[in-house]
């Protein structure tokens, strides 16, 4: 299975600032996914990132709030912009390998 490195593993941020989360994969993958897991909740898909095209966002998520970059087939970033306490969550990237999605270690974000 693909090995996924995600960083930072955790951060504490001030309201109104932005944080960029990085996701690196050890092999080339077509699709990368970004999920959010709010406290006590399950995973919710934010967007799907394909290399060379704009990310596809799920209902309730917008590019201005969660801009995504996908410069090549092994790397992607998710930015959480203009943060508020409601953005405190675990953010996870995942990749599909032989139709199975594997997850990075996640970023635990706390917004004060």
């Amino acid at each position, binding site marked *: 299975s693909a090995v996924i490195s995600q960083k930072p593993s955790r951060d504490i941020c001030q309201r109104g600032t932005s944080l960029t989360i990085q996701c690196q994969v050890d092999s080339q993958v077509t699709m990368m*996914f970004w999920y959010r897991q709010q406290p006590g909740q*399950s995973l919710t*898909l934010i967007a799907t990132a394909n290399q060379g095209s704009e990310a596809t966002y799920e209902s309730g998520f917008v590019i201005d709030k969660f801009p995504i970059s996908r410069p090549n087939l092994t790397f992607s970033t998710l930015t959480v912009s203009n943060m508020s306490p409601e953005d405190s969550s675990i953010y996870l990237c995942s990749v599909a390998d032989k*139709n*199975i999605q594997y*997850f*990075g270690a996640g970023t*635990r974000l706390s917004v004060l």
Partner: protein
Amino acid sequence: EDKVVQSPLSLVVHEGDTVTLNCSYEVTNFRSLLWYKQEKKAPTFLFMLTSSGIEKKSGRLSSILDKKELFSILNITATQTGDSAIYLCAVEGSQGNLIFGKGTKLSVKP
């Protein structure tokens, strides 16, 4: 609207017990059902099921899918404290995205 429902939401058992976790779904253009174990942050893959009636097994864990009744179960026999985790069920739709259930929080007491 696609949805995945897991039950129970939480479960407390003692070491050595056998547990059954349930997952039902309503998803357009079903492709597969996956089970994950989440201990800290990252869900780790357990099983992928695509065909009805074929049991997947790994050690003390096993899972089976019923595509007619739209559900799956995950069994854990002879539970150990290391099995304590949240178990997530997810269904893959036609776009390759995963729809997750809320999870079952399993606590195994010594």
